[in-house]
């Protein structure tokens, strides 16, 4: 007991207070448990989106023409720019973790601020696209009154489009809030080579948001 206690005390030395839970025998174990917990959560997120992708697969199979036609009426430039924005934000968050791990907190803070700005940029572009859809009345279900496409199934395309991009957009908002909170903790100097798991987990969430969009982009904009 005393040996364990001293080893823990040794590890925690120099860390901000309250990092290591009393029920973990070492920080390394706690980090591993935190990572595993985060990946379990990400797995449930993948299953959540998996349901929507499944719905998309079914209706795309049934209404191939409508889906192809509707996707050509989406703003391809906006979709492509948004893909690049999210990919770049994924890079900045990966770099933020890298900088925190190598004790360059200032660079980490700058990278996190850039990530949040990219997230806002993504939402801005998405808002412009949504505005276009509302003006064209390219809306889901019974509200669909888009003049340009009147093929059976086009309302279903827009239902899925709004559900998938809407749920993804909600994830962007949540991810952005999480990153803002992590940014605050980075400014306080809580993350360093000794401990950066919190930052790492926030980054994992953001990468998942990017992963989902990597599939949404070709399926919605490019079929």
């Amino acid at each position, binding site marked *: 007991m005393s040996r*364990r206690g001293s*080893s823990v005390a*040794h*590890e925690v*030395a120099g860390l901000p207070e309250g990092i290591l839970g009393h029920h973990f025998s*070492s*920080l*390394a*174990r706690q*980090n*591993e448990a935190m*990572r*595993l917990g985060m990946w379990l959560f*990400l*797995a*449930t997120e*993948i*299953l959540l989106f*998996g349901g929507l*992708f499944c719905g998309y697969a*079914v209706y795309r*199979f*049934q*209404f*191939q*023409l409508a889906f*192809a036609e509707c996707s*050509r009426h989406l703003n*391809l430039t906006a979709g*492509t720019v948004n*893909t*690049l924005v999210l*990919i*770049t934000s*994924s*890079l900045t*968050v*990966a*770099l933020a973790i*890298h900088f925190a*791990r*190598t004790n360059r907190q200032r660079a980490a803070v700058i990278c996190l601020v850039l990530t949040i700005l990219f997230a806002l940029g993504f939402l801005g572009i998405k808002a412009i696209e949504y505005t276009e859809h509302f003006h064209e009345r390219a809306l889901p279900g019974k509200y669909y009154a888009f003049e340009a496409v009147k*093929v*059976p*199934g086009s309302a279903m395309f827009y239902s899925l489009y709004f559900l998938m991009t809407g749920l993804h957009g909600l994830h962007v908002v949540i991810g952005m809030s999480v990153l803002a909170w992590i940014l605050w903790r980075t400014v306080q100097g809580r993350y360093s*080579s*000794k401990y950066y798991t919190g930052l*790492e987990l926030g*980054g*994992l969430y953001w*990468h998942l948001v990017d*992963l989902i969009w*990597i*599939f949404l*982009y*070709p*399926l919605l*904009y*490019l*079929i």
Partner: protein
Amino acid sequence: MSESGPSGRAGVALHPGDLHEEHELSAIWYIAVWIALVFFTFLTWFTGKQHLGTWALFIALAIACTKSVLVALIFMHLKDSSGMTRLVFVTSLVFVALLLFFTVADVATRFRPATPAGAPFGTERSQPEGLLEHEMPE
């Protein structure tokens, strides 16, 4: 299992320095992955604009999978993660694959009256008269 992790991350008694001996990639790696992701984005944009018919979906999904592998392995550090973490991720993908496979297999083998109104299979039978020129912009 956790005590024999390759990087020693999950070991019991560690010196503070040992905790982070998991080798951190150099920043060049992240930038290289980013360049690859941008390249693949333009590739999928370019191939998508060609409207290659049957192959379009296959190519788009192949590129999307390649991009995801890069993000998961490098950005999300799955390359250096413990086996348990990788297992969780792969399991979720397996279940999504099962869901997609059996659902699409069901829909694909239904007979016509069991499909939603106005939903024929295949593009040939699904063109109502008068919509032809409108549907084929190219």
